């Protein structure tokens, strides 16, 4: 745990001052231990409340989109709704089907939540504000993320229910086929930043050109394409709207969650929201410049506030997409991944390599560089899109 920026103004150093004030009385070895405990407690507290608020915000935004107010009976503007849901989940009887496999049935939510919480360790929330400064942070993030698939299958298989089984098979196929574009879209960022450590990636996105355009990766042609692929894959990894096939209500009732009730059901939802938050956090870190301020003049606002703002913006886009789009079918979903996202990510890798190699070009060559960059990013998108959408299209109708 770093000592924190010494030169920045008070707000920036606030978290570190708070931590030091708490642990200054402890002897040396215990202090390190206390610091990590505080970091863990802080992350769990913040993201726990964010989860609670997110369930409420999601239902309020969905409501507003559908011309209705959303929950507003509990507390002022429905603010106590998460508390009500929590109590309901706690008091509900936890039914385990007789023919279920009790050990796996119990372990599934625990493993899912465990691995999805692990991913919070490497995300840089602010300047020097990262729980564990790992050299291979991004790889650690994806490793922890990929272990959650096992637990979803555990849940589906152990409930011994037809719907759960079909959903578990779907979940496996979906998560594997979208993990590849997720990683492939992160590789260009590592190539551009030259490091796998998340804080260094964010630092490499500092600085501005012409005073107001920040050096975020999303403002480069390959960055925009990679961000799009990463965002779509993140939607699918966290089982969110167009890709929420495992718990497709219309076909499989609640998919692999069918046989869960009570607090285990709540744990699954907490794991899903944690997964969503961590993927959005990594998207912000890789592409939207982590805790970097968008304008030089706005640097007085503390860095962790910028990270929180961007995270909430991405989460709102997640909810916005859930409010609008219908669900893809299983084979369309996997074909979309293998025939659209993976080729796009691979070509984008080449585009990013070209962008890094052509760093030295100046003057008119700069315009050529941008032209080639954009062509390499948009070209495959249009071509693959046309091939993917070959069979479908608007139709004209005649009248009898």
């Amino acid at each position, binding site marked *: 745990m770093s000592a924190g920026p010494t030169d920045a103004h008070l707000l920036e150093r606030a978290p570190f001052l708070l931590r030091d004030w708490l642990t200054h009385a402890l002897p040396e070895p215990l202090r390190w231990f206390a610091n990590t405990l505080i970091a863990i407690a802080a992350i769990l507290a913040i993201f726990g409340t964010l989860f609670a608020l997110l369930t409420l915000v999601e239902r309020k935004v969905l409501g507003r989109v559908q011309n209705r107010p959303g929950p507003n009976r509990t507390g002022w503007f429905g603010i106590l709704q998460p508390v009500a849901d929590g109590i309901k989940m706690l008091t509900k009887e936890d039914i385990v089907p007789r023919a279920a496999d009790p*050990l796996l049935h119990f372990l599934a939510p625990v493993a899912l939540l465990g691995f999805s919480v692990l991913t919070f360790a490497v995300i840089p929330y602010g300047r020097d504000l990262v729980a564990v400064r790992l050299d*291979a942070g991004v*790889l*650690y993030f994806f*490793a922890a993320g*990929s272990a959650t698939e*096992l637990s979803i299958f555990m849940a589906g298989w152990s409930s011994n229910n037809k719907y759960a089984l079909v959903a578990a098979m779907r979940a496996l196929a979906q998560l*594997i086929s979208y993990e590849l574009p997720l990683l492939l879209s992160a590789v260009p960022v590592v190539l551009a930043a030259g490091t796998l450590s998340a804080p260094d990636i964010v630092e490499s996105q500092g600085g501005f050109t012409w005073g107001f355009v920040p050096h975020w990766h999303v403002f480069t042609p390959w960055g925009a394409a990679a961000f799009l692929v990463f965002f779509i894959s993140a939607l699918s990894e966290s089982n969110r709207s167009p890709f929420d096939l495992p718990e497709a209500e219309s076909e499989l009732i609640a998919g692999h969650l069918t046989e869960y009730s009570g607090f285990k059901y709540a744990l699954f939802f907490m794991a899903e929201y944690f997964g969503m938050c961590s993927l959005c956090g990594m998207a912000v870190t890789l592409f939207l410049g982590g805790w970097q301020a968008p304008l030089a003049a706005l640097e007085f606002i503390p860095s962790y506030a910028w990270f929180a703002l961007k995270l909430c913006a991405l989460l709102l886009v997640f909810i916005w997409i859930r409010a609008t789009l219908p669900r893809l079918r299983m084979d369309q979903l996997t074909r979309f991944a293998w025939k659209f996202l993976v080729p796009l990510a691979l070509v984008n890798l080449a585009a990013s390599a070209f962008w890094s190699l052509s760093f030295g070009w100046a003057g008119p060559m700069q315009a050529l560089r941008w032209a080639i960059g954009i062509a390499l990013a948009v070209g495959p998108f249009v071509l693959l899109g046309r091939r993917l959408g070959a069979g479908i299209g608007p139709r004209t109708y005649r009248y009898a």
Partner: protein
Amino acid sequence: MSAALAIVALATLGSAAAAMLGRSLLRSIFMLAVSWAGVAAFYMWAGAQFVAFAQVLIYLGAISMVALFAVLLTRQSRDEASPPPAALRRAILAVVAAAGVAAVLLWAVAHSPLAVSGSLAPATSVRQLGFDLMGRHAAALLVVGVLLTIALLGAVVLAADGAQERPGDEP
């Protein structure tokens, strides 16, 4: 031998044993996954973070999935294949085979020149790892790449045969 290492070792060996002795095939796969996680913990303890994360990503993320698919699609999971009665002759043969394998392994470990130094392995940074891979071991990396591509193509061809058998999958 720190306490943490002992616990990790015990967990790895225990889950590996449970995997082998387990009655339900699927539960043994989950036990196998736990033992792979134990191996990853070893790498972490040894300081090789990159390899540990790669181990988790590849083994826990992908190989266990392949094993699950394999078991489910070949219907072994359905009828619990009850093991044949443990005849004495079969037990002796098993012990002999196990002893032989153990002996060979122990010999190899004993004779390999391990510079067992007190300190941890030098913490190689990922950047250093990248230079080595692309520099000295570039050839090995290319060979492994080609090998994997061929394996992937083989898998696609095998899967493609399957598609013909059930036409009409393409909408």
